[in-house]
């Protein structure tokens, strides 16, 4: 049973939305700290451009496209949920999750290749950042996909449709983090 408190919205914003923005804000500062540190190091180490040359831009670009597409499905799921079509929303969420899985598979292939070619997390600090940043991002992708599965399961039954928008916001955030990581790790060489 839900407390009455959950149903109020004195600030004029749905409570779930407020909570998701809180989570996103707290994540922004986490990634902000990590990427800020990376940029400071990068600026003081010219040699890193050479290390970055070993990253595979093609795979990075593919993954960017995969994530952007999955975000598009998240938007479509939201639209369907707005119209009250839970089944359709759940289906689009499934497509988004498929994007997440594809992203992780490509990432796995990429890491496997790099590690087998001697570029591991301890090779040097560039690679430490590379694996740490992408690893934390990957953990968010996994968490997002799992939560999305739970939301989709309910949505298919027409329950808790407002959550489709909330998980969508989170997913866009995960996407945007990648949009920052991609140029920093792959393009700047």
């Amino acid at each position, binding site marked *: 049973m839900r407390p*009455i408190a959950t149903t109020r919205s004195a600030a004029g914003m749905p409570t779930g939305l407020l909570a998701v923005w809180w989570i996103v804000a707290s994540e922004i*500062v986490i990634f*902000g700290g990590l990427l800020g540190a990376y940029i400071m190091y990068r600026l003081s180490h010219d040699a890193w451009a050479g290390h970055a040359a070993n990253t595979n831009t093609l795979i990075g670009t593919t993954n960017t496209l995969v994530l952007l597409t999955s975000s598009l499905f998240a938007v479509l799921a939201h639209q369907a949920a707005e119209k009250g079509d839970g089944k359709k929303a759940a289906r689009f969420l499934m497509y988004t999750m498929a994007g997440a899985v594809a992203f992780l598979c490509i990432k796995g292939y990429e890491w496997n290749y790099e590690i087998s070619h001697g570029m591991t997390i301890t090779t040097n600090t560039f690679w430490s950042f590379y694996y740490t940043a992408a690893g934390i991002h990957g953990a968010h992708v996994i968490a997002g996909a799992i939560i999305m599965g739970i939301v989709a399961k309910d949505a298919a039954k027409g329950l808790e449709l407002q959550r489709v928008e909330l998980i969508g916001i989170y997913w866009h955030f995960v996407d945007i983090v990648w949009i920052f990581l991609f140029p920093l790790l792959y393009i700047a060489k």
Partner: protein
Amino acid sequence: MAESIPTQPSDPHADDHHHEEQSFVSKYLLSTDHKVIGMQYMFTGMAMALIGGFMAYAFRMQLAFPGVEVPLWGVVTPANYTALVTNHGAIMIFWVAMPVLIAAFGNYLIPLMVGCDDMVFPKINRLSYQIFLLSAIVLISSYFVDGGGFGGAWTTYPPLSAKAEYNLTPMGASIFIGAVGLEFVAFLLGGINFITTAMNARAPGMKLYDIPMVIWMIVIASILFMVSVGPLLAGAIMLLFDQQLGTAFYDPNRGGDPVLWQHLFWFFGHPEVYVVLLPAIGITAEIITVFSRKKLFAYRTVLNTAIGTGVLSFCVWAHHQFISGIDPRMAHVFTLTTLLISIPIAEMMFVYIATLYGGAIRLATPMLWALAFIFEFLIGGVTGIFLGASGADIYLHDTYFVLAHFHYTFFPIAIIGTFAGVTYWFPKMFGKMMSDRLGKIHFWGTIIPFNFIFIPLFFLGAGGQHRRIYDFQNFPALAGEGMQDLRILATTSLLVMLGFQLVFFYNFITSLMKGKAAGKNPWKANTLEWTAESPPPHGNWKELPTVYRGPYEYSVPGREKDYWPQDEPN
């Protein structure tokens, strides 16, 4: 601000709260009730305070009587000593001040003071406490692993913290980082509820400026915490990788930079002071208005200074690093911002003093604590100016002067603020009155020794005594009899102060068992929690209240009663 669609008091759910028969486990251990979670945080915090206090006892004994066999501990070795000071600091800030001031009072008070039945997300609230409890257990477990507890100070500066060959605690260092990380996660989860409940679940009619000050302060503190802790969490992951995977984020020999950690740490560490200060300031506001029967002087000014302090607190972190090899020109900037922060804080002190003017001040136990908070924090505030002035900090940095200064801020916050809050809300929490006589004995028995502990440390610090040193007998200039006498005075006072805490526990337990029934509103206060039963049932009210005015309408001219509860239509 859009007003909500009022949830009708005759809500059908209102009844459900009462016929849930709950077993002991579901009522006290797995409860989602905000009041139970608040209590859990409070009692866990108090237990941790006892552990932290015991640690202080052990290392103070070593300082006063070097090499002595400390009762209940044994001889304090150098490794013991560094681990004790490290964990004392971390426990008192992360496992006492934060859980009690923000989580315990926040959980207990926010729904009651904004007039709703529970937190917005009760399950997240429960999860927050469970993670917090886990973090406390993890921290304590570090004492029982190979190598013992981490001893690199609560600031955890690498490379010392990053490599086992330097800190000699291969497990302890990582467990310490892990425990602190878990604690941060617990408070980020808690913050979700504090913000959403205070902002969204307010009673119908409660406008932004009708929110009691303590709620505002907890909300602002939660936001400050959330914004400041992120970079440190990222930094902590990097440090953990340095420890366990062999990366080199902070290793200067392999392209890392140890000073990065200091920036990340203090970017969090300084706002953290205000994270715990603001709730204590809020508690003080509630108490001094009730016990002087006065309206809070310039409510909006207090709120604005709190926000101003919060914003400025993000611009001062490097004053902890004046002498740590940052560009010397930066020191000027941080001196400026640090001294600017004296302005909102001084304003806040002035406002509180002004509130007393024209009051009818009743010196009951909670009021004594609140007044002591103002006075003792004033000492903490003015001694901070010495340290913010970069030129003077060259000498004072990392001496006992710093130590005494921040104990004059943290002790009023964590201990005085907590006792103020506990003695004030005890009747609401447990439905019984505490003994005022025992409360006053405990008050004086805490405050007087407190000053005798830390004033000598100001003198020792000015005399050049540095922190975290195991035995001053190795330093001829510090080994003199006069200085040792001051150390013995501080330690003796600590023993006296710890002894007087027994009075509090005796008072707490006897009042709980046979205290006078408190009734709904023993202090004749205005805020909403005093309109609920004492203690409030699950769901808080049968009919949720509606709010008609601000929280501090005391002694309004032309009214029969000298208080005007927020929920009375007229």
